[in-house]
């Protein structure tokens, strides 16, 4: 746990400048990679990335008056904003969080989904073949990512790997 409530903090901070409902699951997937602890499980469906745990939690936050969902966009209420402002983070952690958040804010829905898929596929291959197996399975990884995303390019794939490493704190 990086804050007193990572789940609440990451959602409120992601929604501060309004966020499309569709993008939030990708944000939360990626913040989980960055070490924030909420233990959400994610699945890939025909319609994209989904987490029933996140959906249920959003209902709770809506219920308790932290957020409002309006026209497919999640916005913070005054109460949500005050709660967000009350979170305490070290300066280093705040800088790291903002760096990730600002980068994510520049991505569109498809780019965010691309990042998630790249990580998901690599994690699953690593689970099966081990870290040593990753290099020999590169073709399999890229062909899987291609089949699950739109407009695949090798440049985007390499940039994603770099960004994912940054999120995880590897670089």
């Amino acid at each position: 746990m990086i804050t007193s409530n990572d789940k609440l903090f990451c959602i409120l901070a992601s929604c501060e400048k309004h966020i499309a409902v569709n993008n939030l699951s990708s944000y939360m997937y990626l913040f989980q990679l960055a070490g924030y602890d909420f233990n959400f499980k994610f699945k890939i469906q025909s319609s994209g990335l989904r987490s029933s745990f996140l959906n249920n939690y959003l209902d709770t936050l809506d219920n308790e008056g932290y957020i409002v969902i309006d026209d497919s966009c999640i916005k913070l209420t005054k109460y949500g904003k005050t709660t967000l402002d009350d979170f305490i983070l070290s300066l280093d952690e705040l800088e790291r969080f903002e760096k990730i958040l600002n980068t994510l804010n520049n991505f569109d829905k498809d780019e965010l989904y691309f990042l998630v898929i790249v990580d998901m596929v690599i994690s699953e291959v690593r689970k099966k073949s081990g870290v040593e197996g990753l290099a020999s399975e590169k073709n399999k990884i890229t062909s899987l990512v291609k089949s699950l995303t739109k407009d695949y390019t090798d440049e985007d794939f390499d940039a994603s790997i770099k960004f994912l490493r940054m999120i995880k704190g590897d670089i």
Partner: protein
Amino acid sequence: MIIRDQIHGDMEFSDAEMKLITSRSFERLRYIKQLGFVETTFPGASHNRYQHSLGVCQCVTDMYNAVVKNYPDFYREGDLELLRMMALVHDLGHSPFSHASEALSDIAHEDRLGDILQYEAKNIILAHDYDIDSWDLIEQVYNGNGITYLSDPHLITLHSFMDFFIDADKMDYLERDSINCGVSYGKFDRQGLIRNLTIVKDETGIETIGILSSGIQALESFLLARYYMFSHIYTNPIERIQRYLFVKEMQTLLRGGKYPNDIKQFLQLDDTKFARKLKSPYNNPYVCIYDDEFNLDTKHLIDRKLGRIVLCDTPMKSIFRKDESDANIYIVNNITGQVKPCAEVSPIIKGVEFASVHKLRYYAEKNVANEIGQEILKVLRSTKL
């Protein structure tokens, strides 16, 4: 073997399926009530997860057969066996008293499934061409992740037979629960809905479950049934307070106040282990003194004035889509083949498309209920809410 069911009539199971059905983990479902404490208000609702799991298996069979009839290209050898196994195992991870005890578990019931399937691996027999164990394949497709699942878009579509707005699980529980509760509004035209299921391809070629336009009324009846069942049965005010009292009492009965994470210990637990020990189902000191549609301003006001002496409950459930960005159900015109979102074809669906059941309720102890109920009215009148 043939098993007779109250909803589906005769249902046939293969020898391989019977091996799972007669396993200890599956038999355990006989002793877990489908609706927890709903039985307090609707005494007929004593049906269990065993009946439901068999019923879901029949529903998914009917769904797949209909889809293949309407869209033959979707057929693939082994699909049905995989879907039937998924249906049979989908509730194996449920805790005693079903959803009523979710707060007593650190792990969601879907997340226990992998461990249980591994534990029952010898009873899970499934012929397939994938390079993984049968139990692993079932877990990946049911949970919607894993390398084999991600490698095959066809599996992603199969997943939706068990997890979509219209899936085998929902179809069985809506009808079964409504019949056992003795309410008629949970019924819908199941056969009409299933008969019209088909496959729709989106612009990227991803296949999802869709409906032929001749099934639009059946879809309407399904969504309305879901709305009624959630507003009247699944968020019933008496069941909700029973649930609260049950969780409090169970926390004193369980070591550490939670169900064990260890799968062997967990599988020892069912409703019968606790039913006789529990006092809360017979000793409810609370009554509901306020029950209305959710309103945040009202909640803040009542919480501020009376929050210390009342219990608040705000059950919430989306009936169909949460918002515009959510997935959708597409309708395929029987004659032209044109594909449209269902709300564009049906004014009834348009009306309930983003509907949710969302309540604001307060409970107080019986001996002070009248007095506090009057206080709430005064608070609301003073602010014209």
